[in-house]
């Protein structure tokens, strides 16, 4: 993916190149590219003066950031205690089977990425699956395919 230096710089200047805004800057980059490209982090380091290693340290610390390209849709399956006892793991396995990837991976066509999370704070509606910003409550194995279909074009649904 092509990185526009001016765009990254504009993210940085939006926060007055302040060091404490690092997480906000990273969030903006991730929003734009769906992941944190290496070159983008280099530009952030040059413009803010934060050592690259420290930026990488922050970027790898938080699960919300990804250094690998992610699919267009991010499927997050909750494996927190409450969702786990209601079958979260089985639902994850179903997603893994249907998408033919393991948690933490991205489908070959770059359409879906699959990841897990330990509790989203809405256990009452568990098992929870989040796709992009949409929460799918009380998921079951049977609902996995219908949910996925919503994010596929007609041709892909076959």
């Amino acid at each position: 993916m092509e990185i526009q230096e001016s765009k990254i710089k504009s993210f940085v200047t939006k926060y007055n190149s302040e060091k404490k805004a690092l997480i906000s800057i990273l969030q903006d980059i991730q929003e734009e590219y769906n992941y944190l490209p290496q070159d983008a982090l280099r530009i952030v380091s040059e413009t803010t003066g934060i050592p690259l290693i420290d930026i990488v340290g922050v970027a790898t610390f938080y699960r919300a950031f990804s250094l690998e390209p992610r699919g267009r849709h991010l499927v997050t399956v909750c494996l927190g205690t409450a969702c786990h006892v209601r079958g979260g793991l089985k639902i994850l396995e179903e997603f893994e089977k249907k998408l033919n990837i393991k948690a933490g991976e991205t489908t070959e066509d770059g359409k879906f990425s699959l990841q897990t999370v330990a509790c989203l704070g809405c256990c009452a509606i568990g098992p929870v699956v989040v796709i992009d910003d949409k929460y799918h409550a009380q998921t079951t194995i049977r609902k996995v395919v219908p949910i996925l279909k919503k994010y596929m074009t007609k041709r892909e649904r076959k």
Partner: protein
Amino acid sequence: MINLIMNGLEVKAEEGWTILETAKFYGLEIPTLCYKDGLSPYGGCRLCLVEIGEGPKAKLVSSCTYPVEEGLIVRTDTKRVIETRKMMIELMLSIAPNSKVIQDLASKFGVTQVRFKVRNEECILCGLCVRMCAEQMDGRAIGFQNRGFKRKISTPFDIRSEECRLCGGCIYICPACQLRCQGPEADTAVCNACLTMEPTCLDHYDDLQCWMYDAGRCGTCVREKKDGKEQVSNTK
């Protein structure tokens, strides 16, 4: 000046000193691993734990990071401290059994077993290399990445860093990079050879004959100690 009690003694410390610095000033020994003069304290290895306070409220703190306060009561060698310290050494041994530094600590503090799965990860995440690189070498080439059980030390994106000046400072200071002696017990999780062996040359000479000036430590010229007490008087 700040007044505090250490091991029952009334001592005075300068404002801003840590418990460790105060103890050193008064000659009280506290073992350390992730603390080195010239580098900022990190508090990662927990070897320098001491007990502060009294009775049920007493708690363990890392002396290398804990600043002294007026009236503080510190004990450096309580049962709890010694047991915890031994546990920390045992845990570190299970991660990096090939480290000379950690094996020596085990010998010194009588850690004779490792009850954890030996993982041979060879990095105890003490952070010395990171601080050495940033604070003494002005490098900032390596740092901590990820978190939890995936935490590791690496360069950005795991490739050669443009910031690295190949000074070797990180390797120099790393306790896991200093390999243990390859003597008789080289494959075990815990060596303790320094405790149970004695140099053979002492049978014939009064002085040690080791050219390395580190007699018996390498383990190649040693034989099993017959009687611990006798050996001490022999070497005097």
